[in-house]
């Protein structure tokens, strides 16, 4: 029984070898199901939109791109298995993914071991590209890292908004939210501010009033809440219901049209850091927003934009490389400099992190508006 099964599996898993004019396979891993499915879906949409556009322009010197997407259910072990399958059986040229750092951390060693480049669009934990003081040679990212984004908002709060007393409300199960909160705290204190309180919630909670009530008693001037829009929208509403008028501050996890749909006018006067502003007149950004809306009937969130950029950088590097795979591709990606993406002008530094300025957006009338730029 076991034998027949393994034979079956082997048969199913062995695909045909790639011919010369076969499309270039782009492996994508995301949480298409499970609690974080909505983020995985945005990532997939971003990559697929980029591929569609690239192919309509003739692909890579006539060779088309094709995405191979696997679901990991939001589980690290599934992400690892899916990555292995992508690199060893589907023989993809590059792996794009994941959103959560805990899953990218499970994927990175496999990309390293198999010498296949990997770009994570939105994993912000520094350890994804550099673990134990050693840079992972094959792993890159196009998003901010936690230290940068946490610091950016601390600077903004302290220097531009002149805040002195801030409280933190973090998502305890989310490494992104934890990372941003930690670096915000460190920087804000360094700049002479005070952190009044540090409360936590868990993604998916419906009620945040317990934490908000206790924060309210401490009378902070603002609350730093670097979670995802799914929870922040409810937090904003409940803060207003408790007559809390101080602004909430957040990170790029806020960027989604769903935030305004669910949070409504409760969000007015809130700030968050992001990669780009939808007001930005740059044609690249406006074109991206327009085509994305046309195809998926919703405004792209930050995750979609980052995934879109990850794919564009891949194509750009492939164009520059002597061969669209392996070592040449790795070198080309590492040499990315001044790439004009939707999420900013991206240069990859020695640690394989994207260096780009962050914009600060202020929400008014259910829309984010440009408030300022902070350079790295």
């Amino acid at each position, binding site marked *: 029984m076991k034998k027949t099964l393994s034979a079956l599996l082997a048969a199913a898993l062995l695909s045909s070898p790639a011919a010369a004019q076969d499309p270039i396979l782009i492996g994508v891993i995301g949480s298409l*199901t499970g609690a974080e499915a909505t983020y995985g879906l945005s990532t997939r949409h971003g990559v697929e939109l980029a591929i569609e556009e690239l192919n309509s322009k003739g692909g890579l010197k006539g060779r088309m791109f094709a995405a191979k997407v696997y*679901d990991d259910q939001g589980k690290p072990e599934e992400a690892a298995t899916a990555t292995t399958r992508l690199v060893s059986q589907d023989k993809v040229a590059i792996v794009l993914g994941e959103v959560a750092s805990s899953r990218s951390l499970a994927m990175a060693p496999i990309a390293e071991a198999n010498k296949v480049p990997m770009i994570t669009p939105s994993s912000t934990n520094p350890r994804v590209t550099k673990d134990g003081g050693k840079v992972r040679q094959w792993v890159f990212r196009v998003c901010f890292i936690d230290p940068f984004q946490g610091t950016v908002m601390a600077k903004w709060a302290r220097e531009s908004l002149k805040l002195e007393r801030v409280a933190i409300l973090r998502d305890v199960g989310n490494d992104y939210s934890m990372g941003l909160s930690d670096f915000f705290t460190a920087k804000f204190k360094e700049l002479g501010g005070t952190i009044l309180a540090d409360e936590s919630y868990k993604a998916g909670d419906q009620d945040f009033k317990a934490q908000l009530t206790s924060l309210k008693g401490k009378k902070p001037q603002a609350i730093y809440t670097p979670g995802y829009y799914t929870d922040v929208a409810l937090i904003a509403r409940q803060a207003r219901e408790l007559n809390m008028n101080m602004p909430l501050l957040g990170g790029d996890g806020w960027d989604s049209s769903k935030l305004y749909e669910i949070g409504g006018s409760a969000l007015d006067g809130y700030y968050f850091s992001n990669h780009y502003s939808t007001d930005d007149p740059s044609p690249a950004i406006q074109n991206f927003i327009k085509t994305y809306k046309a195809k998926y009937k919703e405004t792209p969130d930050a995750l979609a934009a980052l995934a879109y950029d990850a794919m564009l950088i891949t194509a750009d590097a492939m164009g520059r490389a002597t061969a669209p795979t392996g070592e040449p591709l790795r070198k080309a990606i590492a040499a990315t400099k001044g790439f004009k993406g939707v999420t900013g002008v991206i240069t990859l530094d020695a640690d394989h992190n994207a260096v780009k300025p962050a914009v600060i957006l202020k929400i008014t009338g259910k829309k984010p508006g440009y408030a300022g730029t902070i350079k790295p």
Partner: protein
Amino acid sequence: MRALRSLAPFLLGAPVFWLVQCYAPPTLAIVLLMAGVNVILAVSLNMVNGFTGQFSLGHAGFMAIGAYTTAKITLALGDPAGGVPPWLWSNGVFLLALLAGMGLSALMGLMVGVPSLRLRGDYLAIVTLGFNEIIRVLIENVRWLGGATGISGVPPYTTLVWVGLAALATVVTAQRLLCSTHGRAMLSVREDEVAAEAMGVDTVGYKVRAFALSAAFAGLGGGLLGHYILLVTPKSFTFVKSIEVVVMVVLGGMGSISGATLAAVLLTGALELMRGLDQYRMVMYSLLLVVLMLARPTGLFGTREIWEFWGAKKKKAAA
């Protein structure tokens, strides 16, 4: 001679696993590896749910204890010392770490087992699930254990040979237990606790022993998993994971070791085969569960073992 017989399954298994490790295509190897880990989990949970008939829903919690302990130790003893060759060092350290992980999980199993003894059925299930969640939340809150991200950079010690031998050890342990008087004592707890007590079986003692033994092997599975994905994170040990293991046990047939093994392999394989279905994969999986349970309510094998069916067939043919 006796030692040889006692070790025979491993001596025979090791070269087979080694050959598979050398020649299986990587994807198949990984599916087999995951299947092996699931076999460890399902067979060990079967010791509690199948043998003693207690309903534990907290297996992932014990996995977590094992995984974190193992990872902490291998990370602390990362570099070979005293001129030991690296391969020997790493495997030695891994063995040591896995045993420590099993030990600590077993201890936790005792701690969960003892207070849970007053409870039965659904109450026990919800309490063990509660322990699972408490363990996970505690880990999430401890910085030393990496909080929500977990411990990354875990050394890649898990190989197919390791997993194969560990799975074999679990199955052999379960089988030897079941065929012994201790196993029968556990079964008597499942069948009728009052009668078992009256016949001199220390039912409390056997429940606790089953919990500890089962937790130890869950810890082994957790340790192996952590050193395969090279990351130990609370996200791997939610109650959903516990539920998945229960599903394997019930689907295989409560108390049937070969049933649990086969169910673990089948479900892992089926999920991998369906990977191309994207979002529809999990829908198919849940449909499969419902249909299989409706078609075979006692699980694939009931409380029996696969060879008993072959035996029955032969008898029929002879008659």
